[in-house]
Structure formats: structure tokens, C-alpha cells
């Protein structure tokens, strides 16, 4: 009886240790994550993306003229005649 109780206490302390370790690990990983998320936001900020796209990739911002809009047929796929056209 006594041994069983002592054994239980020992196990509780042992598990308590690992929970404490895990919590510390969690906290430090969360902090790290916050830093990395920040880095991600900073790297994907429009200012950086724009200069990267412009200078490194040679891209240019689209103008309204460079967009091609498909006709109303594509915008309204629920129309039965359109559907039959597409099926064919």
C-alpha cells in the first residue's frame, strides 16, 4: 500500500517534469513562430514584393488594358443552353 502510494507520487513528479519541459518548449516554439510569421509578413509586404518583382524578375504592374475579360457566357454558367454547349 505504502509502496503503491510512493510509486504514484514518483510517477506524478516525473510526468510533471516532462510537462514542464514540454510547456517551456511550447513557449519557445511559439515565440520562434511569432518571429518567423513576422519575417514572412515582412518578406511578403507589398513594398518588398514590388521591388523584387520589378527589379529582379522584370515584371510590371498590370493595367486595365492588359486584362482580358471573357464574355457573359463564362460568368453565367447556370444557363442551361450554355451548359449544353459546354457538354458538347
Amino acid at each position, binding site marked *: 500500500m505504502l509502496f503503491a502510494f510512493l510509486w504514484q507520487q514518483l510517477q*506524478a*513528479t516525473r510526468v*510533471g*517534469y516532462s*510537462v*514542464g*519541459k514540454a*510547456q*517551456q518548449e511550447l513557449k519557445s516554439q511559439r*515565440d*520562434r513562430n*511569432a*518571429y518567423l*510569421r*513576422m519575417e514572412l*509578413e*515582412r518578406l511578403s*509586404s*507589398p*513594398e518588398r514584393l*514590388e521591388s523584387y518583382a520589378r527589379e529582379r524578375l522584370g515584371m510590371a*504592374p*498590370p*493595367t*486595365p*488594358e*492588359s*486584362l482580358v*475579360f471573357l*464574355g*457573359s*457566357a463564362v460568368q*453565367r454558367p447556370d*444557363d*442551361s*443552353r*450554355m451548359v449544353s454547349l459546354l457538354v458538347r
Partner: protein
Amino acid sequence: MRQALRLQICAAICLLPAVPVAGRLVLLQVVRHAGLQSKVQSRTERAALEIIPRGRILDREGRILAQSLPAWSSTVDCDLLQDPESAARRLAGALGMPLAVVREKLASGRRSVWLKRKMSYEETARLRKLKLPAVAIVPDEQRAYPNGDLARPVLGAVRLDGGGASGLEFEFNRALSGRSRKVELTRDVAGEPIVLEDPAAAAAPAPSNLRLSLDRNIQFFADSAIREAVLEYRAKRGMVLIQDPSNGELLAMASFPADPMKNAAVQDVYEPGSTFKIVMAAAALESKAVAAEERIDCENGRWELTPSVAIKDHEPMGPSTLPEIVQHSSNIGSGKIGLRLGPKSFLRYCRLFGFGYKTGLPFPAESAGLLEIPGGDEGRTDPVRLANAAFGQGLAVTPLQLVGAYSAVANGGELLEPRLVLGLESEAPRPPLKLRRVFTPETAASLKAMLELVVQKGTGVTAQIPGYRVAGKTGTAQKLDPATGKYSPTDYISSFAGFAPVGAPKFTILVVVDSPQGKHYGSEVAGPVFAKLARQMLALRGIPPELPLPLAPARSRGRSVADAIPSGAATVPAKRKSPPASRPSLPRPSLLKSGG
């Protein structure tokens, strides 16, 4: 018998060593219990400081505009330092601080000094490696803005202690505020924590995040456009506001120079100049003060209102209709209509548009503007002040008020509550709030037509965008020179307010450039900025053109495709909802011609 005695002596000898042990136990557990217990507790149960970070500020899509990062601050206990010189050298190396600064801190004479506040993750790790017992590291937090200066005047700043100092950080300080709390922990001899309770019960409450109506990309366009314009014209400052006229949400709010302590678009006022003529025109149409075809004499560019005050026009005009007056931005025509409306009626419409009052935007130190015509509310007419007010001089508005007025025109006459904050992330979003109807949809349609004419062939041609119908108004206001109390001959405020596409307006843009040098007309300075932003918005939102693109005959411009097509044409749906024709295609140019 002897045997039994021998056994007892043996047992007594065996138990003898237990006596002092028992005595010691009694001494420790009973006699000195309280003192020892507290000694143990002070070693094992330590309160740890836990920081619950300040909430994030997000854009409308949930992209981070402001975030708190865990940071650490370090203090040093100078009494515990054995070798200050070598410690200073090692600390300076680990923290990247000048050696002289560290030395000075350690020699300050106080026992405890802040070594460095808001240290980064890496700095803290390096400091921990030094294992200096005199140095204590405490958790802290640091506010970070991943997009740099983007929207900084809107976001504001936080103080060193973490409280909001200006902008939204200040206004929503309570909701955003992070807290620090003490957590009781049991630790072993080495200081490792042992968790003996349910960790879920001790879980930290999450901070609330603030979601704005701003769109990070659109804000970026606005920030860059106004920065470029201010630098190009060596102007004093500039503001850009972009609003969705259907729900009042502000998509961008930019000012340059970007000062986190001041948001010019909400807190500053300016004389609106001709962009304010929209109020005069709305009042004239609503109160039917001017008949549709009526011509008002614009005096060929010079009108002596009183013997000492003459009003001049940029473009001299003869008798003109209201649309022509707006189109060519005639001050004389506007002044005459203002006088005809009378001060009471004019002021009433100004107030209906919300001028002279705060919009109630949740932002610190919003300005109400300045709407004053002496004696106007009693019906006494000060002709000079009234005529001036009709073309936007002698009164002051905030950019926020003006963009709201143009949104009212764009959405058919309803003044909406401007919205910058959609709410806390945890709350359900609030629907847009209609403040009041300022004018009828018919008046709105006439105003739209006038503003479209301004861009087609009036003062606003620089705001044209091929393929789209754009409506807007230029403004070139003279600035009061504070030194002389008179209007400056060199300093102007150039502005442009407008919206697109006219058929179904998706955005209202206001551009204000204060004191541009070299050029000063709203059409030259602010018009191109408007066009640039509008083109970016159209491309970003993928808004299809309303008009046949530049290949089509020029005379169909200014008319929507639907208007230009005869209603009986076989390949064109008669109503919007009817099924599309068997061969869906854009209308052929020949059809357009027959319609025009």
C-alpha cells in the same frame, strides 16, 4: 527466559540508531516546521512573469499590419558584478552595443540598471550564453510593423511601456492591450519547472485582434502614389483616401510625410476649393433653384461682387448652364448660384453632407472642419463670404468629410458612416450604417453626369481612363498665408475627388496635394494621381471595361455599351436577366455605330 532477554537486548541495540533519527525528524518536522517550510517554498515555488501579448492589427483580409513580438529586457545588478570591465566587454559584444555605453551604465552608481530593453530573440540567446549571475532577463514585448511605413499615420505608435500613444493603437488601447500576469510554478533545485496542476486551467486568455477596413495592397498603392506626388512637386504634404461608396468602408488612408503621431486625412483641415462645388450643385438641383436649361451669366471671367471684391474665373465664360459651370469650374457661376440659394439653404446642404461635424470615426482627435458664414443661420447674407463658400473658399473640411460627400454622389445620394475599423476579430461584423439621404437618386444621376462631363471635356481630362467612365472634380484652392492673412499668390492646394466606374461605382478616391511647387492646378497635379490609382484599382479588382476599348470609334465614348445598342438587336439580350444569345460575344462595332 534468558533467550528471551537476549533477544530483547538485541532488538534494542538494533533499534538504537533509530532514536536520534526519530529525534531529528521530530525536530525538523514538528519544532522547526514553519521556518523550514517557508524556506523550501521560497526555493521551489517561484512566480514567473508571463506576458500576454498586445493584439494584432490586421487589414481586411487578415494580413498583419501591426504585431507584438516577444522581446526581452535585461537588467544588471551592479553589486553582484565582480569584474565590471570584463563584464562590460562581454555584454557589449553580445548585445551589439558600444562599449562606452555599457561601461557608463555599469558605472552609473545605481544598484540596478536597465541594460537593454526590447532585445531580440538572438540577442537574448547570446546574453543567456554568457551566464552572468548579475544579469537578469525579464520578458517584455515589442511592437513591430512588418510593412514598414505602410499606413503608419493610421496605425499610430505605442509607448515604450506598451500602451498606445497615437492613432488606432491609442483609440483601441483597451481592446488591444496585452497584460502580464504572474504564474505560480513549482521548481526543483535546478530551477526546472514541475507542473503539478492541470495546465488547461492556467491557459492564458488570448488577446483581441483588430480588423481594419483597409486593404494592404490598396493602401500600398495610395502610400506610394502620394509619396511620389509630394516628392515630384516638392509639396508640403499630401493625402489620399479611397472609399467603397457602397458601404462606406475606407480601403486606403494615406498621408505623406508619414507621421505615426498624426493622421492628416482625419485630423487636418484644408480649404477644399472647387471640389466643394458639388454641394452647391446638389443644393441647386434639390431645391430647384436653377432650372435645367437655365443659363447663368458668367460675366466673361470677371465679376465685381462688391466694389472692392472681384471674382475671377480661370476660363472666361458667357451665359452657362449648371452642368457647364461645374464642367469648367466657374467660380462666378457658382457664386451666383450660392447667392441665389441664400445662406440658410446653402448651410443646410453643407450640414446634410456632414461638413462642420465630426464623422464619428473611431480615431483620436478627429477634426470637425470649419463651416461658418457669419449671420448665415439667421438668414443675413454676407455676399462675399457666401459666394466664396459656394466655390469652396473660406471654409475648411477634412479629407474624410469630402470623400464621404463624393461617395454619396456615387451611391445615389446616401451619406454613409465612414468605416476604418471593421471590429474586433472575435466579434461579429457590424453591417454598414446609412446616416441619411442627402439628395434624391435623380439629383445623384444629374450630379454624376456633370462630374463625368468634367472628366470627359472639362477641367478633369487628366483623370480619363480608356475604356471606363470616370466622374470627378478638380480643385485648386488658394491658401491663406498666415503671415499676411491674405490668400497666397504662390501656395495652392490641388485636389481631385472622383469615382469610377460611373455605371456601378466601386471606389471613390480623393487626392489632396498641399502647396505643390511648379504646377498648381488640381488637373495637373492631383488628376494624374487619381488616374494612376484608379487604374491600379481597376486592374486589382478586375473590373471589366464599361466602354469598348480604344479600338472602337471615338464617338461612342461617354456612353455605356448597353446604351449604345438598339434594344431590338438580335444578338443582344433585351434584359439583363434573359439568357445570353447563342453566340455570346461582345457587340460588333457596326451595331455600336447604328446605336450612336
